[in-house]
């Protein structure tokens, strides 16, 4: 008697489990025929993984969403573990592509021979974003408000030589603004960061007399405060009056930003202006590897309307993969990422600069040559 109830109970429970399992199966394998016929399906199917720069995360998520809409049989995941970790993972062969803020170094190119079917890995720019110098100053800062600053003033602030907001040098560039005598607190990144690298590159290139440090991913001096990650910097700026820091323009929120002097004019940080700078910049001659498209950003540009503080972020891929299916996917995926519609999706979602022009053509050529089934 007792055991039969028991058996029945088990039967009921297991049938529920079965139904649940079956329906879960249905979710995982979208045998959606309408989806497969709709849109030109390039035959991309399967699960693919990428990892790397957290700066790209927002853009990559937007790309994945739209890409999977078109290619219903593909399943893509991106782990924003950081540039270094992303490239290391890629070099173990565990991911199809990697995102990185820093171009590959010679040693990494050499290592990539082991995981690429032939040739060495290459990098192409996929995500360009303006870096804004943002500040929190009672009575002065606010959304869409700007202070005019040239590279010298920015360098002297971030090197601790200008310590108060009503310093003569800042006043001279902003005669109409009533600047208070608040002490300046510089906020910078505490972790290794591509943003720091780009920002210090700008300072070194545009104000070499006032910025004595080499461009690098770690903040070079002891001025001010350090915070972990872009969000850490932004939240620290928000916590006190008189702070100034640097981060992706998209994170500026209610802070004021610096209009940077380029040539004779002051340029507000904006995606278009950043894209202009990158497109006009020459390619970096790379000592190792082929098909690589690495921009030598012209931080010291004096062309009117260019915004010079720009971060460029790359995608790393192999020219041929051991699994031809992966090759076909990466070719299609990066082709989409670099396409006008892909760049527009990123710009709409993250405030990044939509690339295009000769640079992207070069990148597309490299990507299009990836061997795949």
């Amino acid at each position: 008697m007792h055991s039969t109830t028991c058996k029945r109970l088990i039967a009921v429970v297991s049938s529920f489990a079965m139904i649940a399992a079956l329906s879960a199966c249905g979710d995982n394998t979208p045998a959606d025929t309408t989806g497969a016929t709709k849109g030109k399906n390039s035959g991309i199917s399967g699960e693919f993984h990428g990892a790397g720069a957290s700066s790209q995360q927002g853009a990559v998520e937007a790309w994945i969403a739209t890409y999977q809409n078109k290619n219903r049989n593909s399943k893509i995941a991106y782990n924003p573990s950081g540039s270094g970790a992303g490239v290391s993972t890629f070099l173990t062969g565990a991911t199809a592509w990697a995102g990185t803020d820093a171009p590959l170094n010679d040693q990494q190119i050499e290592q990539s021979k082991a995981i690429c079917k032939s040739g060495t890995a290459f990098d192409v720019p996929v995500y360009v974003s303006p870096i804004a110098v943002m500040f929190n100053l009672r009575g002065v800062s606010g959304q869409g408000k700007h202070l005019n600053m040239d590279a010298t003033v920015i360098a002297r602030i971030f090197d601790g030589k200008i310590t108060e907001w009503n310093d003569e040098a800042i006043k001279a560039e902003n005669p109409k603004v009533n600047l208070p005598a608040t002490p300046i607190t510089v906020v910078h990144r505490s972790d290794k960061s591509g943003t720091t690298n780009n920002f210090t590159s700008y300072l070194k290139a545009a104000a070499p007399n006032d910025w004595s440090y080499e461009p690098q991913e770690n903040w070079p001096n002891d001025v001010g405060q350090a915070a972990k990650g872009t969000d850490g910097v932004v939240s620290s700026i928000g916590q006190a009056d008189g702070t100034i820091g640097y981060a992706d323009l998209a994170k500026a929120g209610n802070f004021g930003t610096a209009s940077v002097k380029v040539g004779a004019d002051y340029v507000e940080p904006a995606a278009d202006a950043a894209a202009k700078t990158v497109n006009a910049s020459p390619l970096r001659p790379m000592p190792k590897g082929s098909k690589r498209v690495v921009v030598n950003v012209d931080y010291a540009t004096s062309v009117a309307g260019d915004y010079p503080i720009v971060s460029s972020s790359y995608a790393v891929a192999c020219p041929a993969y051991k699994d031809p299916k992966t090759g076909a996917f990466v070719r299609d995926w990066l082709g989409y990422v670099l396409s006008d519609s892909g760049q527009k999706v990123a710009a709409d979602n993250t405030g990044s600069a939509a690339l295009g022009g000769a640079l992207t053509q070069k990148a597309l050529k490299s990507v299009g040559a990836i061997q795949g089934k």
Partner: protein
Amino acid sequence: MANISETSGVGQVVPAVAGQVSATLGAPVGGGPDGRRDDLDFSNAKPSKHSQDKIFHAVAVGCGALILVSLGAVVLFLLLRAWPIFAGPQAKTSAVFASLSGGKAHGFWQYVGPLVFGTVVIATLALAIAFFVAVGVALFITFYARKRIQTVLNYVVDLLAAIPSVIYGLWGALVLVPATYPFWNWVSVHLGWIPLFAGPAANPPRTVASAAVILAIMIMPIITSMTRDIFAATPRLNQEAALALGATKWEMIKLTALPFAKSGMVSASMLALGRALGETMAVMMVLSPGMTYSWHWLQASKSQTIAANIAAQYPEADSLGVSALIATGLVLFVITFVVNLLARRITRKGGAQ
């Protein structure tokens, strides 16, 4: 179960098993709370014929061995993974440390030195703040609070001890730290003549002082709940004897509770210090890190702890960089080991009195 409790010789069998375990592992198993072991008479212990005892014996030995194995595995992992940074070519390793420290350090000791300094200073400061408050709370709960308040406080203390550190970190970084600027500013203005409090106070105050306060709040419940339990175990007879001799309540506590709880208080604070030394998330969220040997607690970007530094630098580290970070982890391991060793010493001495 029923079988065992009916056995007459239970009291002797269990110590015998303990003795066998310690003999097998070659390490002494701690004695009773008072440290005396000579009252255990091993000569009477006969190997039991009950199969439960054999199973229990095997399980106990296995558990004891597991501890040693896992500790050994951790040490081995740290040594193996840290090895490339010690064995690698000088030029390469110095480049790694330069890139990890922003060009400030070029060798291992140069890199890990300020981190050790920061770790020890912040943890010690946190313990110094937490200890007296925690013992005060424990004394209040045990000897002064009324029954209902006692229950509520006990509950709250246990709850505080259970809150994950990342939540303390978030609250500290987003609420507490910015709110304490006026206080730190006041301290730096009025006590700035003491080098430790030299101004100007950082704003937002993401400093060593703030990090120590957050850590103190985190470790306080640990000390409180342990010392509370020890105070509650103070022999009633001693307390009443003290009171009968005409001692006031404070004198009674001084004469009976504090000496009785001394070694327990030390071991509770060492446990708390261990947590403070290894705390990662809260420090990372609150502290503005720096790589100096500075004693200026109210200024930002002066110190960093080993654990927070590993967490912060790990994502962007390449293979040799990871080795360097794991080597700093090895140093943290040694520090906690030394702290525990000292604590053992002190509690053993305290217990012998």
